[in-house]
């Protein structure tokens, strides 16, 4: 049974998506999609436990052995990623199923769930596949469905946001396709592991260098690495908050994973860091993202845009971990993948609660909100503290590994930069908290009431998890460490 899990992982949401269109009834569809997400989560957990204990699962699709057929290949890193994607989906989908709380027109809600499941399919496909071309296919499935999801946002600006994401995303996808084509030309194979072997003799050629360049830029667009982040603030701002919660917590994360795979699995650390010196490009860009993103976030007046710029900074931490080319650094990057997913997902849900009641995502409209929506405001405060990286929250765990990674190499200056950039997070988080806590309530706030319980508990599951995983790291830190060692070929 376990041997088939990688295939079921992808096929289950893929088949479940059209069922949503057939069911149509928004309440039934909501429950159906939630059940599918939970089942997928169970599969992902099973795979993670299995790979931790027994090592890699390889699955030949249709019985065609690799390198001829498509291979689904799940090691600890893949399973970890699939767990993140399904876990976040399991927490986002129960959020007010079938009600007005989604901020999506009721007659379109079944389409939301369809697109959501398709998007999940694509993300899971990228997570588990061992085939380079297959990655491209799933990138496109993810992209197309996420354009739809973003365009579901209220207001016409959601359409332009979705369109500019479509343009950028297509460029990114095309670059990845070009890179795969070039690699195929040099090696005659599409299987990643096989490709890595056959690339070795031709490593010095310009074609391989160009392929690497296309891969990196393509993945970086999807990942929103500074300065390729332009699509992101608009997309997250104008999409429905639930979509922002899901995409910010998963889509960029899977793109990060693709980049990591390209670096470590296909081209190898020796080539990427030894010959090309990718870190000379990635590290300054990561540091720039950490600072530019946080500073930009401080100047935002809309809370969703603030969180989007914060994401840009947080992605900087992840790519910084990658650029360190060490187990500690990559562990930090991977664990932040998980932790940031939790906190940013949770925070976007908090925002969904607030905009549902206030009908505004302007920070100034939230004056005195702590008195009227105490639990939602408290959730924002805790999620914010996690973004800052206060000990006892998940953000601290990521920061710990990253700073360790810098210190182990004797780079005290880098450790200091990481810590200083986390101070900037205090700036943009406190800007909101101060308004919520200390400003006298406006009329709009005075007339509001707390969010319904069905909207509060999913928020608290996610925000509560940031505290749990801030203290209990067996399934985050340890797994990320194993995943990092696996990716770097040390296991």
């Amino acid at each position, binding site marked *: 049974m376990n041997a088939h899990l990688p295939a079921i992982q992808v096929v289950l949401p893929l088949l479940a998506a059209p069922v949503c269109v057939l069911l149509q009834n928004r309440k039934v569809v909501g429950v159906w999609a939630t059940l599918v997400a939970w089942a997928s989560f169970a599969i992902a957990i099973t795979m993670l436990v299995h790979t931790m204990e027994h090592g890699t699962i390889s699955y030949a699709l249709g019985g065609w052995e690799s390198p001829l057929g498509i291979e689904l290949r799940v090691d600890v890193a893949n399973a970890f990623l699939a767990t993140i994607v399904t876990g976040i989906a399991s927490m986002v989908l129960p959020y007010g199923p079938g009600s007005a709380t989604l901020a999506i027109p009721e007659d379109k809600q079944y389409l939301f769930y369809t697109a959501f499941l398709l998007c999940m399919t694509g993300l899971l496909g990228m997570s588990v596949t061992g085939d380079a071309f297959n990655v491209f296919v799933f990138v496109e499935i993810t992209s197309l469905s996420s354009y739809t999801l973003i365009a579901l946002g209220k207001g016409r600006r959601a359409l332009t946001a979705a369109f500019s994401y479509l343009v950028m995303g297509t460029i990114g996808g095309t670059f990845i396709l070009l890179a795969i084509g070039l690699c195929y030309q040099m090696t005659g194979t599409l299987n990643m592991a096989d490709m890595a072997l056959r690339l070795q003799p031709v490593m010095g050629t310009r074609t391989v260098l160009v392929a690497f360049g296309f891969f990196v830029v393509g993945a970086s667009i999807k990942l929103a690495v500074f300065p390729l982040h332009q699509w992101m603030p608009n997309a997250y701002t104008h999409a429905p908050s639930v979509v922002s919660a899901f995409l910010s917590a998963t889509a960029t994360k899977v793109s990060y994973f693709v980049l990591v795979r390209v670096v470590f699995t296909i081209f190898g650390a020796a080539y990427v860091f030894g010959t090309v010196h990718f870190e000379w490009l990635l590290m300054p860009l990561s540091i720039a993202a950490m600072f530019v993103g946080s500073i930009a976030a401080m100047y935002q007046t809309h809370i969703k845009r603030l969180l989007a710029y914060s994401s840009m900074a947080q992605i900087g931490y992840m790519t910084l971990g990658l650029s360190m080319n060490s187990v500690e650094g990559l562990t930090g990057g991977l664990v932040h993948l998980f932790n940031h997913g939790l906190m940013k997902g949770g925070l976007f849900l908090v925002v969904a609660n607030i905009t549902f009641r206030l009908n505004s995502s302007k920070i100034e409209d939230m004056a005195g909100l702590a008195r009227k929506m105490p639990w939602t405001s408290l959730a924002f405060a805790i999620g914010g*503290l996690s973004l800052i990286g*206060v*000990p006892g929250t998940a953000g601290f765990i990521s920061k710990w590994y990253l700073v360790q990674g810098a*210190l182990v190499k004797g780079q005290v200056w880098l450790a200091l930069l990481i810590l200083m950039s986390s101070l900037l997070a*205090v700036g943009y988080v406190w800007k909101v908290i101060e308004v919520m806590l*200390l400003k006298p309530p406006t009329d709009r706030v005075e007339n509001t009431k707390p969010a319904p319980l069905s909207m509060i508990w999913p928020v608290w599951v996610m925000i509560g998890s940031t505290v749990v995983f801030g203290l*209990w*790291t067996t399934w985050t830190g340890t797994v990320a460490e194993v995943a990092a060692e696996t990716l770097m070929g040390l296991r």
Partner: protein
Amino acid sequence: MTATLMMAAFFIPIGVVPLMWAARKVPDLRDGLMVVAGLLTFACVVGMVPAVAAGARPEVVFFHVFDGVPLAFKLEPLGLVYALVASGLWVPTSLYAFGYMRGHGETNQTRFFICFALAIFAALGIAMSANLFTLFTFYEVLTFSTYPLVTHAGNEDAKRAGRIYLGILVTTSVTMLLLAVMWTFVIAGTLDFTVGGILAGKVDGPVIPILLGLFAFGAGKAALMPFHRWLPNAMVAPTPVSALLHAVAVVKAGVFTILKVVIYIFGLDLLYTTGGSDILKWVAAGTILISSIVALRLDNFKARLAYSTISQLAYIVLGAMLVTPDAVVGASMHIAMHAMGKITLFFVAGACLVSVHKSKVSELNGLGRKMPVMFGAFTVAAFSIIGLPPGGGSWSKWFMALGSTTQPSDYPFVFVYMLSSLLAIGYLMPIVARAFFLPEKVDHGHDAHHDAHHDEGHHAEVEPSIEDPSLVPILPIGESIRETHLLMLGPIVLTAAGCVALFLLAPQLEAFLRPIVGGAP
């Protein structure tokens, strides 16, 4: 058994929080719960004293957060002293706070008292932490749980003060303290507080003073100059906060961290033989003198006390940096001595504000004759801060000065301690003199209420009008004596008596603390 008591003391302050929230509609029950929790916590802490004095070091490991870095608690004499101070002064401060908050007509009292309990919880977590990671965790909990207290008034002043408070404390702790903690971990492979230190033999050269500097400045709550600005700004908080948190729990968390690091991370021998703390001795000495001189010039009552606190905290830092057994024991004793004295002074400052609406030193003329008990208590506590008998502060200062005589290069610090005592006389005694010996100014006041409205704009705090007339000065004994409300006077007398008690108990305290520097218990 001791471990059980330790966990009880740790969990009671946080356990009472949901109960207080549930009782938010019934203020008397809510406040009563807090007093009961305070008494229970203090009882638990006191209950551990005999065992720890006998050499027991109870330890509880929760779980490992990173490999080799558990969230763990372990009690030793220094931590117990800090825990005793924080939990012991919680009860009198609670009583005082009821009088103050109600008398002052403050809003959001439930939030206030819940944050108060959280701050005590964090302080106890710091006191009992078994390693630097646990300590740092609770250090940050303390920072964030006290933010709503500092900004309680909610006006522009409070907001600005809150920004400075959070800005300085978080900046120092994240960029320096956390960096130092992680650096220590990379060097030593552990963060456990160990007798004799964990860094000996693993570091040398300039890394020692740099790392120590990161710790000393990073513990921004110790208010070592130039990172002291948050403390005077935090005085915008209601007086009970200034009293318990910014004279006891929060500021002592800073110096406690520095003492812990010096004793259990570096080890006295390492610092003594390498001279790694030489520069910081002078930083501390400079802080002592500069802040004392600033205190001389301040007219705002609470601001003057705040600068006095900065100076007294630097005493402790200097004592730690001298790294001689006597100085370190003296510095540890000073945590208790200063806490008891300074909380009394703040109580009096708050009582002056609530009862007679005076927030300036220059307005206190003649008040001592109206309120002899209160200003009598003030005088005793001021003696303790200055370092004169019968105040407990005389003993801690004695040991710190004694510790400065071990090597000739430390002799100047004896002079620093003595000079700062003179300066303390200079900034505290005028208050006593004005209160008792100068005639009351009667030029513009018929009654206290009118005074208040006259100079409302000058007060450090927002001042809502008195809502409950029963809380305005009572105890009218004769014509001229009008002491403050009993809920405030009681704690004042109690802590002033504590100053004298500490003077008498000092030998026991010293013997209790000796083991931390390797002496016989």
